[in-house]
Structure formats: structure tokens, C-alpha cells
């Protein structure tokens, strides 16, 4: 048992390594993955400012908060993109470059490899997320009214665990994909930005859509983070009480990790059966 745990910890460290040093060796990511994506976030900020100039009603006074919501949404976009492209679709890339078969014949748990990817990926994703928030504060003058820090930390951590758990589940499902993997990730971009409320509070999508979208951990995570970072408007723009969202995120974390583990095993067997585990250039 101890030996197996050690094996998997080493495997996790091994797979995280290229992600971390990759970020330091190909520094162009700082420009491409950090500075440039901020522009889209800035565009949405300008939209709110423009709409604010047209507004007459009560929302006019909350424009500052909406700008803050966009900044936070932009920060969390980094994690969603990382989960889609560097977790879910990663096994597909690994298959194409010939690494997947080497992972599959090794004795470690596949969860350890995915865990390594997640940990390594979180490093530069966090840089992107933090830079979005810093620029939001510096350029757009976003001010926060923070709630209890312990809640903030818990929500953030549980959101990431559930989100990367979902990424692991996707990775297992994508394992047998060819180009479908790329297109599926692409499809899960704008529609998810919409239903998960990346750029406006999810409450405005209506209860049915908001509840349905809550299966994606970032929906509730983002809503809870907004409530905890902009406490003044939490009661007006929040979807569910933070405590409820916290419990739901904990459930989603367990659920996705459990499903990912089983799905990985199932899909691996299916791949061995159909021969698609090593089939390239699909």
C-alpha cells in the first residue's frame, strides 16, 4: 500500500514537472496565455461601462460590481481553458505524440498522471488568473468587499478540485477520441461561458438553466466567489446561499473524482478492446 502510494506520488511529480519547466522554457506563454486573453476581459468591461452610460434604472449604480464580476469571470476562465485544453484534451495529444501508450503500460494509476497534469497546469493558470485580477484592480479600479477568508479559500479550493476532477473525467472520455476531442473542447467554450455566467451573474439565466449549469463546478464556484468578494451585492446578484454552494461543490468534487477513476478504467478497457487506445491521426 505504502509502495503504491509512493509510486503514484512519484508519478504525479514526474508528470507535473514538464508542465512547470515547460512554462519557464517557452516564455511566450506569458504573452499568449496571460496578457492577450486579458483583452477579451477588457472588452466585456468596456461593454458594461458603455451599457452603464445608457442605463437609467437601479443597475446603473452596480456597474462597478459588474465590472468586478467580469474580472473574476475572466480569472476563472483561465482555469476552465486549462481544464478543457490541457486536461480533457491532453490524452488525445499524448496519443498523437506517442506518449499515451507509454503511460498505459506503466504501473502507476492514471489518476496520478492526470493529477500531475493538473498540479503542473495550475501553476501557470494561477499566474494568468492572478494577473487578470491585478490588472482589473489597477486599470479598471475594481474594489472588493471581502467575506470570511476561510469561506473564500474553501470555495476556491473546492472549485478547483471539482473542476479538475471534471477535467479528469473528460480526459477519460476523450481518450478514444480523434479530432472530436479538439472540437468538443472548442464546443465547450462559449456555450459554457454563457450558461455558467462567466460574464454576468448566473442568476439571470433563470433557475432552471442555473441549476442545470451547476453540474459544471465553475458555475457555483464563480457565483460563490462573487458573493464572497462583493458582499454588498451578494444578496442581489447571488444565485444560492454560499453555504449551499459550498456543500454542492464538495459533493461535486467527490462525485467527479469517483466518476473519473471508474471512467478511466472503463474507457481504457474499451480502448484496449477496440484498439483505439493507440490509434493515431484519427
Amino acid at each position, binding site marked *: 500500500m505504502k509502495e503504491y502510494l509512493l509510486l503514484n506520488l512519484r508519478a504525479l511529480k514526474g508528470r507535473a514537472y*514538464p*508542465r512547470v519547466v*515547460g512554462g519557464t522554457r*517557452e516564455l*511566450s*506563454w506569458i*504573452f*499568449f*496565455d496571460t*496578457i*492577450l*486573453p*486579458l*483583452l*477579451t476581459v*477588457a*472588452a*466585456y468591461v*468596456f*461593454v*458594461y*461601462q*458603455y*451599457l*452603464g*452610460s*445608457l*442605463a437609467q*434604472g437601479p*443597475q*446603473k449604480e452596480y*456597474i462597478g460590481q*459588474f465590472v468586478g464580476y467580469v474580472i473574476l469571470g475572466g480569472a476563472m476562465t483561465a482555469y476552465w*481553458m*486549462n481544464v478543457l*485544453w*490541457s486536461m480533457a484534451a491532453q490524452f488525445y*495529444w499524448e496519443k*498523437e*505524440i506517442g506518449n499515451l501508450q507509454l503511460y498505459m503500460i506503466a504501473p502507476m494509476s492514471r489518476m496520478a498522471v492526470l493529477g500531475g497534469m493538473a498540479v503542473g497546469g495550475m501553476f501557470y493558470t494561477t499566474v494568468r488568473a492572478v494577473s487578470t485580477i491585478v490588472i482589473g484592480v489597477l486599470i479598471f479600479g475594481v474594489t472588493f468587499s471581502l467575506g470570511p477568508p476561510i469561506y473564500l479559500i474553501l470555495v476556491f479550493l473546492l472549485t478547483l478540485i471539482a473542476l479538475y476532477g471534471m477535467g479528469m473525467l473528460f480526459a477519460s472520455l476523450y481518450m478514444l477520441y*480523434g*479530432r*472530436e476531442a479538439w*472540437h468538443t473542447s*472548442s*464546443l465547450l*467554450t*462559449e*456555450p459554457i*461561458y*454563457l450558461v455558467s455566467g*462567466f*460574464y*454576468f*451573474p448566473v442568476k*439571470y*439565466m433563470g433557475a432552471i438553466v442555473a441549476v442545470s449549469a451547476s453540474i459544471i463546478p465553475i458555475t457555483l464556484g464563480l457565483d460563490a466567489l462573487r458573493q464572497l468578494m462583493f458582499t454588498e451585492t451578494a444578496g442581489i446578484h447571488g444565485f444560492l446561499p454560499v453555504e449551499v454552494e459550498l456543500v454542492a461543490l464538495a459533493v461535486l468534487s467527490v462525485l467527479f473524482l469517483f466518476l473519473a477513476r471508474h471512467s478511466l478504467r472503463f474507457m481504457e478497457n474499451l480502448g484496449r478492446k477496440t484498439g483505439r487506445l493507440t490509434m493515431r*491521426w*484519427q
Partner: protein
Amino acid sequence: MKENLRTLLGAGWLGWQMEANWTDPFLFMIYSVAKPVSAALILVFMYIVILGGVATESTAFAYIFLGNAFFIYVGQVLFGVTWVIHEDREHFQTLKLIYISPISFYYYIIGRAGSKILIATVAVVVTLLFGIFILGIPVDAFTMDWALLVLCLTVGMACLVSIGIALAGITFMTAKHSGGINEGIAGLFYVFCGVVFPITQLPAWGQSLGYAIPVTYWLEAMRKALLPAQQLEGTGLHGIENFWLVALLAVSALFFYFLSILIFRLGDYLARRAGKIDMTTAY
């Protein structure tokens, strides 16, 4: 010329196969439409959240919606062209083979971009129809300025492909990260070209940058072509005659064309010098 045409058509066919043959046509159509419509709906919801409904300040809504609809071309073409380099180099590992063949690489890229333009056209049309019939944007086929639409659409596409070629040149040099220069440049245009808000919202330096990019004039021309009688004031371009708008678009597009060729050649040269034509960088 005949050979270039063959390259163009061959690359277009290849691009279409890569884009479309991974699933059945029905799913592909849903996929092609779901993304742009969702992107449009994000703005619609933002609008509704702040202004209560799309009927409030309807001219502003039409400005935002139409700008966003035509911006689909920008995203798709820029993304498509730069993706050609990453996909061919790292995934199919055919970039080096195409590169050493006697065909014109420009025509190859343009051909590959052609399939993206085709898919983007479907998405733009569906988004426009959604805006017209569901959200009530008053576009009328009988009052539209068709000549302006066709002329500017053609010049605009040529301009976008040119910019795409420049980005392809830069992509020769860069590693494959999760995002990319295409995403960033599209973001740059999204902020500075008056796509979803008038450029007068930007600080003065941002406005100057916007006026230097042809996409700004192109989007304004598209709006004018579709809604000649309903133009938003205070956009920074309001009141410019169609002739001057087209002239500005043509001049800036020509400038970008030459700049793109220059950037592509430089990127190509530097990549060859650094031995990056066939590198693989996934990690």
C-alpha cells in the same frame, strides 16, 4: 496561376475535411452554430441584465449585436490560419512536407482559411437571422445597401486573411500553448475596433489604435450596409460618408496586406534559421 488555383482548391478541400469529417453533417452544423450563437447570447444577457430588455436603446443593441455577429469572421479566420501552422506542424506533422513542396505556401494557407470562411459564413448568417427574427433587429432586405455589403465583405475577407498570414508567420516561431496568438489578436481587435461598444469609450490612445485597424472601418461598413437608416451616434465613425468609409477600409487593408507579407516572410526566415519549421512543443 493554374497551379496556385489547384493549391487553393486542394488546401480548401483538405481544410474542409479536417473541419467537418470528424462527425456527421447534422452534428457538425449544430456545433458550427452553437458557438457563435452562445457568444452572441452572452452579450444579449449582459444587455438585458443592465438595460432590462433588448428593446431599450434598440439602436445601441443593434450596434452591439451586428458588430459581434460579423466579428465571428475575425475570430474564425485568424484562428483558422494560425491553427494551420500548429496543427500541421505538431499534430499531423505534415508542415515540413507541405513546406518543401513546390506549391505557394500563401495559397495553401488561403485555401485552408477558405474552409473557415465558409463555416464562419454559416455561423454569421444564423446569428443574423436569430437577431432579426427572434430579437427584432430591423434589418430589411429591401432597404439594405447590397453593393456596400458585397464590396466591403470582399475587401474585409481579403484583409482578414492577410492578417492571418502575418500571424501564421509569427506562429512559425512560437510553441503550442493552450491559447495562442490568434486568441490574443482577436481579443485586441475585439477591444479596439468598436465591435461591441463604440471606440469612444476607449481612452484617446486606444481610439487612435482603433482608427489604424481596418477591422474598425469594416464593421462600421457592415452595420451601414445592413441598417442604412439606423446608425448609432457617438461611435467615432458616425457621419462618415460611405465612399470615405470604403476608402479608409481599402487603404488600411492595403497597408495591412503589405505588412502581413513582410511579417510572414520574416517569421518564415527566422523559423528556418532557428530550425523551428518542424519542431514539436506540446508539454
